[in-house]
């Protein structure tokens, strides 16, 4: 319902991206000592935003002339991080960089929720309830 509003759609996707990336970071952490495990990662949200329609004009209903109708929400596929250095036992997880990613993810999630909440406040003000 609220996903039709662009602001909500954006913050919704951002929060979903943070959730998916958090799951990948947690998996890497759990496998920090598993021999032969390759660290995985999901591209940062800005990369997803640039790959998608971005902020170009877009049709939101069939009657619009320019732009194409937005398709389904994008999926976030984890990729194996090939640049990571491997330990002698074949494990490529670095706890330090995972910590960094974890903090990044949690900040992004908080930011997305703050945007969503302030959008909700605008809507509440519009229907006269403060």
């Amino acid at each position, binding site marked *: 319902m609220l996903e039709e509003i662009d602001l909500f759609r954006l913050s919704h996707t951002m*929060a979903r991206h*943070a959730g998916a990336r*958090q799951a990948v970071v947690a998996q890497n*952490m759990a*496998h920090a000592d598993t021999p032969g495990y390759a660290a995985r990662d999901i591209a940062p949200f800005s990369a997803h935003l640039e790959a998608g329609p971005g902020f170009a004009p877009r049709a939101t209903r069939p009657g619009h002339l320019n732009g194409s109708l937005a398709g389904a929400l994008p999926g976030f596929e984890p990729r194996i991080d090939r640049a990571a250095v491997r330990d002698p036992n074949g494990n490529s997880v670095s706890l330090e960089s995972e910590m960094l990613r974890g903090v990044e993810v*949690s900040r992004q999630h908080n930011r997305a929720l703050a945007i969503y909440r302030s959008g909700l406040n605008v809507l509440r003000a519009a229907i006269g309830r403060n």
Partner: protein
Amino acid sequence: MSEFSNALSVSSSGLRAQAQRLRHVAENIANADTPGYRRKTIAFEAAGAGTEAGTVMPGPVRLDRGPLSEVYDPAHPLADATGHYEGSNVNLMIEMADAREAQRSYEANLKMFTQAREMSSGLMDLLRR
């Protein structure tokens, strides 16, 4: 929501695995002076598909095949003709390093668990006025 519950179960499997590793370290240290004791080691494995996908499991317990230490003590009941008996092959330094690594990984997993919980409770806060 499923992403968070997945993250929580993966983190808890990591916690469990590290705790079991720490238990084996404790067994090894306790038996450092047991004659003929071989130190136990476990390797972690990635669980397969299904609901368990992505979780970590402790593998089977293996015994260290390294040589047992020779202790010279002619008065010992197990001593052979030359006065030596076989001690354990536990190296306390290795066990301490292993315990420290297990603790570090345990804390990292715990941090991820807390973070996933905070993120999902932040989502729940949206429902509140």
